[in-house]
């Protein structure tokens, strides 16, 4: 999209401002289903994401049941899952399918589409002062491709041979050969097709976010006046647009290997005593292609959470964010480094040790921008007049989890230590804390903070506080002990540890973890209840700027229509972080700079 076209587009909107509301005679279908309003699309992403999160979370509860109580049987499981839990005991094949789908659903459908799909759509036009996305049509298609991907993935859960079960990383040859496992049959094909649709969705969304941020900022909104949320969402979109196509290539080649008899990833394979004719392929090639997406993917998940936490921490500390340009620079550095570290997932594949050491160096370099961000958050909080709103609590929780999860990344980034730690519960603990739970906290922070803008009502605070405290304590109780299990060599992805006397000492711990996991899951259902209850019955917002925030989304009416601002688009005169300046608590971005205003902060 060239800038001229988009500007014209904006002009057209501008000249119709006065009559804007009258142009839309919306039916139920155009308003709630095939909506082109970015706010409605954001809500669609959010609700779909919540549904997926419940499914994915439920899966983890079921497989934790197996890990925590390997000796017991649960007859009700058979009623629920049929032959997958014959006799009340989960089948190993289905255990793998559950783990695979848990990873796939939470990484892609919840924390990619549900997180950046929701908040990029919702916040970008509102915070940069635009009436909608650069292309509302593509935006709508982006959601519907996601919906299509969701439908296919959901359908794969009901395939007779079960959904994909080769792990969320779907390494060949396990994923390439239908005979390799029951989950490698039609479930795997559906997985790949679903992901192809998902990639199209994220591509359409990402292109739109980038174009909108670059071309449709309101007057006075220079790039350096953008709120940090927008910067984070911008780099998220860049990462998505550049890394997902590589997974698409990998997935297409895998589909060919599965269905057309090519051998891109297969060579010298014997399966069930039969020698396969495939030759010349390389299974490691797939890992390279996968992780070239896979590593940027963790930042696609994490960056929006970082951006939203920065914004929420600054608003609720009533202080400017510490080191705005350093924050932008460190996000930029993370985005660049994200593309250069993928092989640290592959230290034990027979990677050249010299090459490994290069990847170790680049991986450990990420600690620098990460530490800059952490210290900036902490110094923003330092001696601040903190309001502990639920959004703020979750933002602080995000910082806490990011620190504890990030530190273990330094262990894993060392190729020498990784020899011992790889594929153990240490890895599980690391990535669940730093990218799983931390990003969820960013998402919760965003939902609690922007819920009043989305629905014109507040979420219930009591339920929110229960949700926060149980979740953060529970998250640490679940994942902290896993570090110790991992250090003593307990491998991930095992169905049952009772056959190994060396891991028997963890039996009680496993049971404890499973118990906490169930409690935490129950509390998430409380959040879901709170969400839907407050949508209709919550306390109504009476102040258009309830948090006393500077950014533009709070200059719109409490329930903004399509087009966001009823009159002119506000003009921006200052950065987003003029809190506690010149004795004023906050100065919104659309307030002109006064004559006697001090220059710097």
């Amino acid at each position, binding site marked *: 999209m060239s800038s001229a076209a988009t500007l014209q587009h904006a002009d057209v909107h501008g000249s119709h401002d006065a009559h804007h509301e009258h142009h839309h005679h919306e039916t139920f279908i155009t308003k709630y289903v095939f909506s082109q309003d970015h706010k409605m699309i954001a809500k669609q992403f959010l609700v779909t994401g919540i549904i997926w999160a419940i499914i994915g979370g439920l899966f983890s509860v079921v497989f934790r049941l197996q890990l925590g109580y390997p000796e017991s049987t649960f007859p009700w499981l058979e009623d629920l899952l049929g032959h997958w839990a014959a006799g009340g005991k989960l089948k190993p094949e289905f255990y793998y399918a559950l783990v695979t789908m848990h990873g796939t659903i939470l990484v892609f459908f919840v924390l990619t589409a549900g997180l950046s799909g929701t908040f990029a759509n919702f916040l970008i036009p509102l915070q940069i002062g635009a009436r909608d996305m650069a292309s509302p049509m593509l935006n709508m298609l982006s959601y519907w491709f996601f919906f299509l991907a969701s439908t296919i993935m959901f359908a794969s859960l009901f395939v007779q041979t079960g959904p994909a079960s080769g792990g969320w990383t779907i390494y060949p040859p396990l994923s390439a050969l239908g005979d390799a496992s029951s989950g490698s049959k039609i479930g795997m094909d559906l997985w790949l097709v679903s992901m192809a649709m998902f990639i199209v969705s994220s591509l359409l969304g990402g292109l739109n976010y980038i174009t909108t941020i670059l071309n449709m900022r309101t007057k006075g909104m220079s790039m350096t006046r953008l709120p940090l949320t927008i910067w984070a969402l911008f780099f998220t979109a860049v990462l998505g647009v550049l890394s997902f196509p590589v997974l698409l*290539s990998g997935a297409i080649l895998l589909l*060919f290997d599965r269905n057309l008899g*090519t051998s891109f990833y297969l060579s010298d394979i014997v399966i069930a005593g039969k020698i396969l004719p495939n*030759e010349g392929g390389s299974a490691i090639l797939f890992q390279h292609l996968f992780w070239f997406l896979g590593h940027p993917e963790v930042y696609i998940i994490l960056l929006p959470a970082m951006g939203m936490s920065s914004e929420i921490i600054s608003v609720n500390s009533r202080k400017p964010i510490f080191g705005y340009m350093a924050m932008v620079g460190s996000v930029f550095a993370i985005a660049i480094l994200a593309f250069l570290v993928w092989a640290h997932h592959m230290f034990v594949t027979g990677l050249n040790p010299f090459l490994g050491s290069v990847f170790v160096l680049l991986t450990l370099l990420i600690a620098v921008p990460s530490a800059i961000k952490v210290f900036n958050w902490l110094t923003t909080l330092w001696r601040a007049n903190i309001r502990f709103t639920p959004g703020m609590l979750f933002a602080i929780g995000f910082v806490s989890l990011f620190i504890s999860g990030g530190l273990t990344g330094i262990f894993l980034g060392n190729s020498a230590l990784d020899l011992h730690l790889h594929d153990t519960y240490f890895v599980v603990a690391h990535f669940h804390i730093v990218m799983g739970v931390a990003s969820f906290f960013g998402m919760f922070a965003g939902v609690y903070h922007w819920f009043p803008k989305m629905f014109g009502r507040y979420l219930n605070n009591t339920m929110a506080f229960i949700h926060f405290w149980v979740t953060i304590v529970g998250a640490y109780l679940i994942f902290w002990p896993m570090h110790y299990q991992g250090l003593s060599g307990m491998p991930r992805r095992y169905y049952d540890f009772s056959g190994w006397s060396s891991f028997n000492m963890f039996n009680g711990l496993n049971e404890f973890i499973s118990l906490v996991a169930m409690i935490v899951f129950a509390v998430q259902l409380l959040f879901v209840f709170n969400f839907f209850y407050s949508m209709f019955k919550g306390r109504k917002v009476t102040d258009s700027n309830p948090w006393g925030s500077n950014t533009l989304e709070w200059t719109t009416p409490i329930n903004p229509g399509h087009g966001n601002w009823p009159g002119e688009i506000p003009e921006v005169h200052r950065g987003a972080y003029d809190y506690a300046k010149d004795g004023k608590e906050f100065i919104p971005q659309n307030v002109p700079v006064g004559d006697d205003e001090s220059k710097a902060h």
Partner: protein
Amino acid sequence: MWYFLMSDAFTFGAFLISYGTIRFSVNHWADPNEVFNAFPFAGHANLPLAFVSLMTFILIFSSVTMVLAVHEGHKMNRKGVEKYMILTIIGGIAFLACQAWEWTHMITGDHKVLVNGEIERWGTTVTRNPWGPHVMHNGELVSTPGPIAFGGYFFGITGFHGFHVFSGVIINVVMLIKTRLKHFDQRGHYEMIEKAGLYWHFVDLVWVFVFLCFYLV
């Protein structure tokens, strides 16, 4: 459009890098001068790369006509745009036709294969084909001009590129129709033609790399 092309470039980049990885990790590879020496109506006429050069020329020439269409668009000359868009579309279709012939020839033409140390010429079919999975002949494994990966990558990548050309032709046809209906005259600029042009040049550029990888190296 630029951002989309960047993204698409990464897709093709991944394909071609995979190709490179495999190509340099196996010991033997098909000799392009042998494989691509046929020409329509002439069979294996020992004209190495002549046909593919013609294809490349057609595609590059269609890029030239695209440039001219964009140029006429800047001058707001609807007739000129129409003329050059039609030429571009013809170029695109011609390229696809050539590719269709080449694929047909490779899949069902006659090819040299090595059976028990002797070179034989076979009329090949989809299932009995030197570019596909291993072929057995009287219980003996038939040696083929290249590893299976050659066929896989050749058909995979040229197919993916052909799909892009096909999409490009569709886009150009839509643009032609919109030009005919004077949509761009009403809008006051021919910017959509320019965007379609960007895409077309990108597809052309990708072909240059595909050509380099499969035919020249």
